[in-house]
């Protein structure tokens, strides 16, 4: 699983940081997404997929290939 985030698109809603705090965080100064781990373990798959699906800015892309 490989993840990419687009910080220019991010609107700081924070859904990803709530759903998968091991993978996503938000900048202290602006609330913009920070990718903590671009290739997280399989156990985070469901949370990461949900984060990408519900991101209001479509700023998260997930490539599920190992």
């Amino acid at each position, binding site marked *: 699983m490989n993840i990419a985030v687009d910080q220019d*698109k991010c*609107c*700081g*809603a*924070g*859904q990803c*940081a*709530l759903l998968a*705090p091991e993978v996503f965080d*938000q*900048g*202290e*100064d*602006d*609330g*913009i997404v920070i990718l903590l781990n671009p290739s997280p373990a399989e156990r985070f798959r469901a949370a990461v*997929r*949900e984060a990408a*699906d*519900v991101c*209001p*800015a*479509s700023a998260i892309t997930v490539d599920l290939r190992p």
Partner: protein
Amino acid sequence: MSDTSGQTPHYPFSPPGALEPPQEWAPLREGCPVASIRLASGDESVLLTRYADVRQLLSDPRFTHHLDSADAANITANESGGVFGSGGTNMGADTHRQWRQLIGKAFTAKRVSAMQPGIEAMAEHLVDEMIKQGSPADLAGALGFPLPVWVICDLLGVPDSDRDRFSYWSDTMLSLTRFTQVEIDAAQAEFDDYLRAHVAAKRATPGDDLISELISLVGALDGRMTEEIMMLTAKGLLVAGHETTSNMIGKMVAMLLADRGRWEQLLADRSLIRLAVEESLRYDANPGFGIPRYISEEIQVDDITVPAGTTVVCNLAAANRDERQFDHAADMDLTRSPNPHLAFGAGPYACLGQALARTELQTVLKVLLDRLPTLELAVPVADLARREGLIVGGLRQVPVRW
């Protein structure tokens, strides 16, 4: 965009019941996804009802809700256009992005999570008061209306004693038809005076509230963010965070109690609270007017040309019931996941306070399930009545017993 009936329908539509969607939505989604409508002002506009179309338009950074171009439609029956009128901050995309980043830091998931215990204490206090008054009670008035005002006043450093005045000002600013222009102007002037004095007081004696933080940012930025923008920001946060969440608390509880099997499902499994809140947001058939967008350059929506100068209204709730996006969209499913609903909008202008709103809704639900597991509606669903004449949709009362 052609008008097949020969008569442009008036918008907003009237629903058959307080929790039900207007009958117009489904046929529009099917046959006329880019529809001509007539607004309360008499001006013409265009309505979008499909999920993909609404999401596409809201995600397009070129278009904003600022309707002060000469040819933009006037949404309200009064002159100023209320919250969508010229009184708002008129920022371009770049300025908006800077502003949003400054404010965004107050609403990160971490900061909002840190506010949760305080919100839970407020909710418990309000529920205690409601229990003390005795069953039956109006949950909208006892809990839904006060809680978000308390939270926002806390955030802004406003004293508890001024909460009632804030509620009134917030009400008038969101009026479509309920208040006269004179009342709206008077309330805006009072609110401006109050905020100016509040900002001055915080400048003299800073606290650990958002206003104090904004003041230090404005000073540090040296003109990048003017004081006027800060005033409008404070006002915007209050207006955006009060009515919307207040009404949603009432509607959420009403929807969950309307079919008591839903309430029992939550009593049996509290881990569904988060998904139940998301599904309530999606299923809400009465979120209000929708989100307007001024189309400054020609675009294509569903292969239909929308010319420059058009005012488009994105109906989020109609989009949230689009079968193209959601399986069994007409059913409320408390286990639905993922749930990419558009209740908070989408794209660069999506709701800034959505983490806070979610936290308030989840907390209310948790406290109610813990304290009042026997909660039920005290009237038939058919007797629930909508609040009319405001941009944000809600229920007049949510009578409950336990």
